């Protein structure tokens, strides 16, 4: 399901399946994108932050066009205890690899991988230099 911001429109509540993973996409070239994500985060129920939220930063290939500092994004990831992935959508190889990563995460969050839960997985994803 693709949405431009949260909260989701209420008219489709009854049609929506269970949500297993929320991926917030931030375009590093647009400050508006970060602001949008920050406002949308306020509408997410706290239980999602136990491994069912992920930040995907796109557009990292164009170094000259960055409008958001990576520091700000790292802080966001830390504040919400969620992993941050970086990718460049314009390159097919990276696009494919990122999609496969997200799919793998989704499988874990949906409970399809026995022995690995969303929470245990996200603690594995934490950077070594945290705490």
């Amino acid at each position: 399901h693709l949405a431009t911001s949260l909260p989701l429109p209420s008219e489709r509540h009854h049609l929506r399946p269970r949500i297993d993973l929320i991926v917030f996409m931030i375009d590093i070239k647009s400050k508006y994108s970060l602001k949008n994500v920050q406002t949308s985060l306020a509408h997410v129920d706290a239980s999602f932050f136990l491994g069912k939220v992920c930040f995907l930063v796109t557009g990292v290939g164009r170094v000259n066009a960055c409008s958001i500092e990576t520091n700000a994004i790292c802080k966001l990831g830390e504040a919400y205890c969620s992993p941050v992935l970086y990718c460049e959508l314009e390159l097919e190889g990276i696009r494919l690899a990122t999609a496969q990563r997200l799919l793998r995460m989704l499988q874990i969050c949906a409970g399809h991988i026995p022995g690995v839960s969303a929470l245990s997985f996200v603690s594995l994803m934490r950077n070594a230099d945290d705490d």
Partner: protein
Amino acid sequence: MDETVAEYIRRTVLKIPRDEIKTMLEKWGFLSDTQLQTLNFHQIKDNISQEVVQLCEENSADIKQAAVLDIIYNHIYPNKRMWSVYQMKKSGEELEYFDITDFKKKFKGRLRSALKNVTITFKEYEDNAIWVRVAWGTPYKKPNQYKPSYVVYHSQTPYVFISASVLKSNLPLLCQALIVASNYHDIREMELRSHSLNSLKDIVFKRYSQNFQTYTPKPLQEWNVEPECEDIRIVQENRSEKERIHRLNQEAFGGGPQPKLEFAQYKLETMFKSDPKMDVLDKKEPFRCLVKFSSPHLLESLKSLAPAGMADAPLSPLLTCIPHKARNYFKIREKKGFFPESFVSP
């Protein structure tokens, strides 16, 4: 043939892309068909231009014919110059019959009575456009052929498109000559400038597709999801929002291609409004600020802002009014009923 004329013709030919030289010389019509056939258009441009100059030498070209070639070049490549739009006003309502010979005579007469050293050349085109080229001199110097002004006048309209040369002091004289020649009594510069002459014409002649308010009781279902999202497994949650943005965009910009402008400039003469506790600018002077938007195609990029998610729809009327008001240079003053003070959302 004068050396300066030879040099001018040579440089003009050098400006033309090699593949276009033959067509342009044919349009010029100064060299005969047999002469054109002797030219080798597959050599380097330097040599082509030398050969052209030699042929012109045979035909004893003078500056008048060279100026016509220059007009032809600028008619085909008008986007290399910056054009401003001027509007003329008539005193009465009488529709006088436009006589091209009369126009030319009056124009030349008015200019020459003020300045002896000018080169004036005219060329008419099928779309009722009259191109005038003026090369300016001083009482002591011959006209500078490399910095001419161009005027494009559509005789059935009150609009004139001028690409002034760097010598701006000649502009008032040029304007005067225009109103005298075309039987108007006043001329004013519109705040509309661009490199694309055709887009300027589209704006003032209202040739771009405007959207007229039509009452649709049911939203039209024509617009579908973009082709990449044909996959039924992908669900767009904000479809109604996207449709709303699309509808607002259509209302603001119309359905067709936008005229091509490169800038929009807003000069602010408003007071700075800050938090009173911050005590910034306590002098209460107008805050001098210039906001300039530039783009290779400004209106198309503005049109794509809301669908791309970079701005909220509807866009500020300061941006969407550009083609309707036929201006891209604005002065924003304090809200006294003139311009709205709302700014674009980031």
